[in-house]
């Protein structure tokens, strides 16, 4: 038997996490049943009694019942309530009703606020939305790094779900304006991963600090999603040895924070005279610069740019952006001749304003004729 196949975990068809919260909601509503029944029952008995005494005056009877059971007691306002029969009725209504009324109101308030019905409803709506997500990233653990990451992801319009197992982070996550979707659950649970729609997600970003947890999560994710191209895993590593280990276990990208920080410090030191340029390029490539950006387009066989001269494209004139480099096979050409012909599998690297690049990307995805000079079509 194929070992890989045998080891592969299976995801269930149903979102069990959502079902769990729904059953919690039903349970809460079920508990509201008795206090609500008591409240309506006492209003029913009181109003009916006064209506009989006053020969059908509903509004006054209802008012008299409410002021009696709520211990307001403005007096005998309903016709017939000042008679001996009326007074006996009022006495018994007050004796039973006040207890019923206060007990049920206390129970209702307690149920709504102690269990917090509204945040439960909000959480259910969020889980419903998460189950509809597609092409999103799953971020594991909420820490300082995640706080920065979510800002950049949000800016780039990338969808993501955050999973953390620490209940203390719930308030922080609710208040964070960049986080639309999050779950506070056990992140190793298959059902939890199922409910964040892992089947339709693009990849996972593992920001955990604990080495053992990181390994366990990496293995769990790869067993659920064995295809490396379908599901991309980004993971933090502390050194090269760890990086190797994670890569052999199925991580696509390993990031060593200390290495990145030190190379950046070195780049500042070595480019002292041109600090602005290296800083700008750094910011652009890491997505920190808001106005300017760089994109890469891979020319495929059916692309409108296939077999066209660079001079024939509208990237410079119409979209006001510049092709700064061209990758042909393993060669990276940085001095671009306008007569160069773009071919299949070439990677075009374009530098320009964020808004213009967005338009280029859209036109490229739609294979729009906008990218080519009219005379050439």
């Amino acid at each position, binding site marked *: 038997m194929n070992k890989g196949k045998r080891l592969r975990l299976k995801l269930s068809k149903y979102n069990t996490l959502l079902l769990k919260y*729904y*059953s919690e909601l*039903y*349970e*809460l*509503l*079920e*508990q*509201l*049943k008795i206090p*609500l*029944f008591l409240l*309506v029952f006492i209003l*029913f008995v009181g*109003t*009916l009694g006064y*209506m009989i005494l006053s020969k*059908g*005056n*509903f*509004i006054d009877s209802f008012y008299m019942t409410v002021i009696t059971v709520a211990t307001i007691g403005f007096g005998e306002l309903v016709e017939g309530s000042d008679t001996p029969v009326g007074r006996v009725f009022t006495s018994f209504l007050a004796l039973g009703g006040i207890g019923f009324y206060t007990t049920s109101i206390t129970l209702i308030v307690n149920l709504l606020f102690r269990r917090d019905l509204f945040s439960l409803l909000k959480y259910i709506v969020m889980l419903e939305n998460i189950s509809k997500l597609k092409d999103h990233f799953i971020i594991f653990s909420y820490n300082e790094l995640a706080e920065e990451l979510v800002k950049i992801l949000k800016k780039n319009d990338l969808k993501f779900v955050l999973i953390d197992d620490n209940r203390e982070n719930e308030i922080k996550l609710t208040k964070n304006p960049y986080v639309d979707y999050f779950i506070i659950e056990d992140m190793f649970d298959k059902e939890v991963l199922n409910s964040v729609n892992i089947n339709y997600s693009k990849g996972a970003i593992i920001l955990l600090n604990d080495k053992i947890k990181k390994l366990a999560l990496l293995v769990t994710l790869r067993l659920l999603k064995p295809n490396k191209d379908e599901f991309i895993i980004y993971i933090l590593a502390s050194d090269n040895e760890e990086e190797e280990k994670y890569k052999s276990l199925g991580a696509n990208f390993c990031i060593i924070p200390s290495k990145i920080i030190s190379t950046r410090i070195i780049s500042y030191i070595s480019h002292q005279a041109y600090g602005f340029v290296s800083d700008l390029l750094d910011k652009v490539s890491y997505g920190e610069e808001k106005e300017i950006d760089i994109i890469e387009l891979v020319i495929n066989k059916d692309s409108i740019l296939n077999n066209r001269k660079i001079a024939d494209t509208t990237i410079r004139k119409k979209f006001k952006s510049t092709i700064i480099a061209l990758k042909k096979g393993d060669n990276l050409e940085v001095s671009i001749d306008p007569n160069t012909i773009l071919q299949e599998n070439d990677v075009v690297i374009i530098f320009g304003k964020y808004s213009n690049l967005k338009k280029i990307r859209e036109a490229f995805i739609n294979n729009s004729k906008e990218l080519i000079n009219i005379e050439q079509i």
Partner: protein
Amino acid sequence: MAKKIISDIFIILSLTTNFMFLYFPNAITIFIALFINLFATIFKLGESKFLATKILATSFVADLHLVPAIFLFFLGYKDFAIALAIGALVSNIISVLLVIIESILLLFQE
């Protein structure tokens, strides 16, 4: 099962009492119709089987019609109250239909 019988009785009672008010609009009939509807809604709270949430919703809609209807009736706007009660009747008919569908589904499941 006993719970289901009680909630089903109240759902059907809310339809019949609602019709009773429309046939003979007076103080007592609207009062009974309103409270029976309120009890029917309360008995349906917390149920999660099949169409229970839909039945709860339709029953709640009937309450929302009858609560203003009873006040309008006693304030002298009888036509308006009857119009609202007709709305409640439509909603109650739907909830009875849903109860029937739910019973049939349950029968198939067994």
